């Protein structure tokens, strides 16, 4: 995450239960990824089993902050039970959500400042996955 540039897509991978307990750490991690004029962040939620309101608020804040700076925070690989939560809260209409990480990365190619030769930088954030 040291290779910052406007055209880099940064990926945050989350695991387990994303809730109030983890929200502050994830917010700090997202803040670190929001550097640059047009931040492009993907949150990979393939291993997230539950998301609560505090976690949703964290993602909304990141998305708004990125869009204010002509970037975006996009989500990918939601498990069905997490997809249901986005549907019930209608946040599936607010976020750009993609089926997998590759598709999410490709979606950023349509944004004007994206440089096709830049490789995505993966940020990893893991915590103890529940048994």
């Amino acid at each position: 995450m040291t290779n910052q540039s406007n055209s880099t897509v940064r990926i945050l991978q989350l695991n387990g239960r994303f809730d109030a307990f983890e929200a502050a750490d994830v917010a700090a991690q997202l803040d670190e990824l929001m550097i640059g004029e047009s931040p492009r962040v993907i949150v990979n939620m393939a291993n997230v089993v539950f998301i609560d309101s505090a976690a949703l608020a964290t993602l909304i804040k990141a998305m708004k902050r990125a869009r204010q700076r002509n970037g975006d925070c996009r989500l990918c690989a939601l498990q069905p039970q997490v997809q249901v939560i986005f549907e019930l809260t209608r946040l599936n209409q607010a976020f750009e959500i993609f089926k997998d990480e590759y598709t999410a990365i490709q979606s950023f190619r349509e944004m004007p400042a994206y440089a096709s030769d830049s490789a995505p930088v993966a940020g990893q954030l893991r915590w103890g996955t529940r048994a």
Partner: protein
Amino acid sequence: MAATNYELWKTKIITGEPELSIVIPTYNEEQRILPTIGAISWFISKTRANWELIIADDGSTDKTLEAVKQLEFPNLSLLTTQRHVGKGAAVQQGMLVARGRYILYCDADNSTPIEEITRLLPKVEQEGYDIAIGSRDLRSRARTKSPLLRHWSRHWRAWVVKQLLHLPIQDTQCGFKLFTQQAAQNLFQMQTIKSFAFDMEILYLATRWQYNIAEVPVGWVDAFESRFGTQEVHRFLFDLPRIRQNHRQDVFAVAAESLVPRGMPLHNAR
């Protein structure tokens, strides 16, 4: 398959008596209730078609009611009251209208993940217990960043409960308890405490009526936004002695006359 089950549950009304009822008490939970409903609906629908969800609201003044109503789930009932009475009142209302063979009540923040019900259900379905209660103290699976003060607060409450009620239970206040319908109907009809202390009254009654109680270790996540403030502490300390007092005054016995309990009451207070 899981998606189909969930779609069916949220669009078609169930027929007959539900196998399972889940009661969630709410008070100003507009932020937290929808993720919890989503998690519960998805998980339970995976394995059971015939179940109902009951949201028992305790006079919310925010948009909790609107958030729940707009879902329009046919198997979700929303119970409302005009004024804020207490968590105990909301749970009691929900437990008494629940039609399920087994009835769980759990907190609106999903602090004990709904998946933990798989640890409780076998106790009542297969092992013959009348009540299975989640316990946060029986193993170290809790995730918490609580301040020390709050940690102590939980432990002094447990100590006070032990001194006053002599309950043979380690964690009386985990908001994750499963009852057979018979036990729920009997115990919640006798409930007199409407505050946070209602848990203790129900367990006190359950032990006196000789119901079999299984205490089951469950995972738990501290949800930070505890509603157990100074006012609740005062009410807790006021209500706790009333549990035995109410019993001495035979309030329970009068209420119990109209019931046909499975358990037999113990006549001598400890």
